[in-house]
């Protein structure tokens, strides 16, 4: 506990159990300085810690017991690793003399979590605890952040020792801060200065390196249009004239097709996920690619870079800004505006035709965006509502988008929203969840009840696992195999947890109820019945290239 306090930990998400009881006993003495949030399931704890880390920029801390407690963290660890979220998870373990003996609640959590943690370590002696925790925080936060797990045996937890704590500042085999090669940056600047149609695609790396200002200055000086990945949303204000939209499978039409028309593609803090690139053999082939990333293994992993820059985004963008010419690319930018118009017109027409009576998901998001000025923290789950939110919420603030990107974890949003609020208590937090995902972790309503955290929940209920249903409609001859969902009465459910709730079906009620929800003191659940068979467009089918993105 002293070690955690030395790392300025003031928020912990956890769930006690046999093998972690000595730690919880020590925690009892720190109730004044450390806020421990008791969740309802360990998966809830780790997603909450992820939400906390994403909005606060700090490392999320999780406590869980051995065996099932530890295995319940697995999904969250995998999610945090692929989405570069700094976490320190501390699990209890059976006494060291029992290791390997199939003792009660014993699991080889080190073995299980090895491929899904940035680092993990088992502590069997009390003397090792403070050094292990120091190392854990250093590794979790530095370089490309990620989750770390420390497994502490019960006898080590009981052990007494002379306490001393030294912050870890280096590990001889680990070099999180790359030494940027000036040559590479100069080469990049040269390419950019010669470019007629440069295009800047950004990812979460901007926020992880706190490079929002540097990005803004670079974009404004060079006049280059900007697009964002799912996790990068918010790193560049979406209301900025240079912002052209969201990339990928359900991204905006303009940035997707322009990827295959630009002459220089500058990728910063993003990793060319297959949901962004579509068919890689037909991705930006015409362009020279500059790839700036702090993780050397990402360079050339998916897209061969003409100029790979192994560097911290903040540092690289700062120097790059000095080296590039001041320019405007009005004609090029106009092409994006024109493409956007095509998208908006096509989508509007098809929407009018198909769903005139029922509320559509995008209406809810657009209105929410308007009512919150694009300044709320928006937490989404996985599926159609997630894509709709990414498309239509105007993320104007950094660290305001919390979603499960790489892993696509349904059930992420509710616990992540709880953590997001603890990470940014001064901001409104709105979780947008589908009827399917909500039921994966709805036990965390209990955490809201007990911790009294203020989280607004919008369930977009289409009575289907919508995204899978959309694919079944498009690619499996409408064979809706097990995607139809019968759900409980969410309003009654929320009320059982003393959470105010309302369900609406009429468009006319939308604005009023959204305002009521936002103005309500304390948590609130709003269930919106939306069109059953709405599809998310644009869409890039599997195997298609970015230029083949479909508008309907």
């Amino acid at each position: 506990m002293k070690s955690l306090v030395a790392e300025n930990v003031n928020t912990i998400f956890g769930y006690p159990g046999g093998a972690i009881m000595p730690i919880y006993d020590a925690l009892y003495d720190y109730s004044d300085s450390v806020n421990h949030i008791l969740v309802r399931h360990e998966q809830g704890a780790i997603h909450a810690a992820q939400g906390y880390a994403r909005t606060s920029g700090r490392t999320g801390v999780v406590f869980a017991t051995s065996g099932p407690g530890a295995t319940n963290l697995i999904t969250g660890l995998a999610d945090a690793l692929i989405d570069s979220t700094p976490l320190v998870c501390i699990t209890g373990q059976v006494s060291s003399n029992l290791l390997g003996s199939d003792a009660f609640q014993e699991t080889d959590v080190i073995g299980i979590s090895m491929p899904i943690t940035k680092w993990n370590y088992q502590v069997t002696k009390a003397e090792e605890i403070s050094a292990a925790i120091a190392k854990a925080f250093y590794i979790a936060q530095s370089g490309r952040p990620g989750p770390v797990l420390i497994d502490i045996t019960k006898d080590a937890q009981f052990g007494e020792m002379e306490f001393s704590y030294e912050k870890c500042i280096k590990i001889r085999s680990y070099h999180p801060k790359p030494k940027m090669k000036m040559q590479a940056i100069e080469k990049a600047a040269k390419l950019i200065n010669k470019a007629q149609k440069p295009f800047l695609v950004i990812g979460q790396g901007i926020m992880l390196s706190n490079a929002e200002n540097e990005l803004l200055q670079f974009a404004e000086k060079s006049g280059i249009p900007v697009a964002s990945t799912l996790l990068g949303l918010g790193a560049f204000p979406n209301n900025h004239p240079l912002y052209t939209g969201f990339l990928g499978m359900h991204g905006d039409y303009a940035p997707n097709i322009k990827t295959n028309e630009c002459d220089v593609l500058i990728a910063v803090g993003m990793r060319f996920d297959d949901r962004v690139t579509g068919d890689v053999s037909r991705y930006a082939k015409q362009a020279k690619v500059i790839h700036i990333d702090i993780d050397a293994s990402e360079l050339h992993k998916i897209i061969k870079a003409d100029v790979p820059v192994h560097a911290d985004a903040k540092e690289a963008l700062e120097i790059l800004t000095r080296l590039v010419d001041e320019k405007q690319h009005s004609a090029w930018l106009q092409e994006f505006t024109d493409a956007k118009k095509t998208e908006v017109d096509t989508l509007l027409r098809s929407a009018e035709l198909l769903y005139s009576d029922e509320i559509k998901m995008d209406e809810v998001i657009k209105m929410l965006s308007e009512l919150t000025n694009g300044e709320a923290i928006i937490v989404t789950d996985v599926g159609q509502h997630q894509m709709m939110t990414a498309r239509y919420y105007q993320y104007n603030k950094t660290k305001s988008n919390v979603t499960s990107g790489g892993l696509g974890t349904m059930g992420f949003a509710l616990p992540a929203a709880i953590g997001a609020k603890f990470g940014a208590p001064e901001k409104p937090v709105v979780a947008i969840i589908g009827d399917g995902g909500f039921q994966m972790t709805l036990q965390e309503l209990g955490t809201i009840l007990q911790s009294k955290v203020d989280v607004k929940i919008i369930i977009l209920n289409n009575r289907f696992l919508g995204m899978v249903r959309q694919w079944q409609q498009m690619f499996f001859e409408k064979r809706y195999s097990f995607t139809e969902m019968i759900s409980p009465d969410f309003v009654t459910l929320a009320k059982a947890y003393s959470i105010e709730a309302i369900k609406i079906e009429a468009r006319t009620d939308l604005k009023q109820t959204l305002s009521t929800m936002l103005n309500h003191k304390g948590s609130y659940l709003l269930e919106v019945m939306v069109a059953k068979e709405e599809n998310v467009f644009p869409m890039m089918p599997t195997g298609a290239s970015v230029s083949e993105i479909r508008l309907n």
Partner: protein
Amino acid sequence: MEKTYTVSVFTENSIGMMNRVTIIFTRRHLNIDSITASESEVKGVFRYTIVLRTSREQVDKVIGQLEKLIDVFKAFVHEDSEVVYQEIALYKIKTTSLTNGDVEKVIRQHHARILTVDPQFVVIEKTGHVEETQMLFESLQPYGVLEFARSGRVAVTKPMKEFSTYLEELEDSKN
């Protein structure tokens, strides 16, 4: 195009390191032909020598992901022509087989040696490349091989001072 590659990984000596190294290969569905590990010329630093058949592109990506492991200092990849490598094989045959003069000839021809002689069995040792140890195995088979064991590849690189140079640079950059 698939080729044989020798991957050398320099790591800290920590529990579970072997596992951390091998799961990088498993994830990409790559089969390891052989793996050996022992302390390197630098005290406390372990050297893994891994042999596998794959494409250059795949193995380069594996190197990137190996180097991402916290306890890995550095990983290198080499083609067969860039390393000097060796394997060791042990063959156990019945002592009675020796009475036949041919076995002596076989041992002589293959530049193998007898490691130990027990009233019941003899252990023969041969170092060389896989093809060579395999050839001896086949030559001994008519006399009955009771046991046969072959080690993984150990290899040193032909370019001079790779890892130690790297470590020195590391020390320099700290000062």
